[in-house]
């Protein structure tokens, strides 16, 4: 009974039919190349929310390291590459993998893993400098989907 409900849910999720429980960070299935085929939240990403997560210091803060032409973020960083055209360079599954855990795509990269909750050395409680008690991923499953949806709009001219 329980099994079949789950299977049904998974099928519906795969077809994007309705929102289900997000995939927990530990349960994410990565391909050998570090891509994630299935949606993490089961709900299609919203590119507008994605822009917000990308630019906001208190959410993704991707602009700390990346610039995008026309995004209009004050003081973008340049520790990471410029992301113009990134939606033409990578598939949705690949971008989902890069945002969730870039270390699997780029060995040793400085880019943080946004959907991971273990394996850290002295993790803190956000930016307090104190020890973490419980760890949430840096972005929620839905925020990852939103950011990926936004990145997919960045096509080469």
């Amino acid at each position, binding site marked *: 009974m329980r099994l079949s409900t789950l299977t049904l849910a998974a099928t519906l999720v795969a077809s994007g039919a309705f929102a289900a429980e997000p995939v927990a960070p530990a349960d994410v299935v990565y391909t050998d190349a570090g891509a994630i085929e299935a949606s993490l939240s089961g709900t299609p990403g919203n590119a507008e929310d994605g822009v917000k997560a990308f630019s906001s*210091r208190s959410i993704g*803060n991707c*602009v*700390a*390291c990346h610039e995008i032409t026309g995004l209009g973020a*004050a*003081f*973008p*960083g*340049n*520790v990471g*590459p*410029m992301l113009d055209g990134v939606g033409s*360079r*990578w598939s949705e599954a690949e971008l989902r993998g890069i945002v969730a855990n870039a*270390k699997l*795509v*780029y*060995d*040793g*990269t*400085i880019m*943080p*893993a946004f959907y991971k909750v273990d394996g*850290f*050395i*002295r*993790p*803190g*409680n*956000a*930016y*307090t*400098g*104190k*020890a*973490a008690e419980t*760890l949430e991923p*840096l972005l929620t499953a839905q925020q990852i989907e939103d950011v990926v949806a936004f990145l997919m709009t960045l096509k080469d001219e």
Partner: protein
Amino acid sequence: MKFKAMTAVAALLLSVPAMTLADPDEDSLAINGEIEMVTETAAPAHLSDTLDTIYSGWRFREDETQALQMDDFDNPGMVFADLGLDQWNKVEGEAGKSCASCHGTPEESMKGVRAVYPKWNETAGEVRTLAMQINGCRTENMKAEPYKYTSGQMTNMEALISVQSRGMPVDVAMDGPVQATWEAGKEIYYTRFGQLELSCANCHEDNYGNMIRADHLSQGQINGFPTYRLKNAKLNQVHDRFRGCIRDTRGHTFEAGSPEFVALELYVATRGNGLSVEGPSVRN
């Protein structure tokens, strides 16, 4: 060199943007027009695998911030060195002594001291930072209470002592009895802390010259400490800076004065061997 090598595939896919590296500027620093500072020099031999040149953090700051350090009348940190002189002369503790009782004037006795700390203390059998030595004198020789490690009194005293060595090259030993501590500090420097998994090296070795949001990354040198920061309008102790940087990795920091930070300070100090002592410097 400063960009982590990307996988070959990614490198091909990516047309790496024309390097927008804003490297250190070309300005030179002479304090009051007379004390010439070395703000750029060949990296010490132990860094030869990673860096060719080391730079003072001064070279990464905006002109207006730089200007504040060029003249002692403009340098807000100098006021605190003056307060340090009052503390120097003040008798405290059960031994009825001040720093002056044993050391005379700071000009006479403290020249060159800042340049070689942290260093081995034979009697105590430990590596001592300047702050530890100041407190060592207070507790052992004056029988007075130690200063709190990152307190204003501590940074005032550090500023006073540092001023006596301004312009002298940092020359901190890394071998002999300090070697094990130095190795421990190096290990910490390359450890990727916190939920963001960032090491000191990720920001200050791989990415100096780049912008991380609004911040122009320097090499994270400590030749300028204690540092007056415009951001909090006070002198900052080096362990407070270390705490801030680890906090920014969403990490659980070490305590000021902890063995970990003493080791890290020793290691980072030796990364700056050859730069001038600048403290109290001015940063944003």
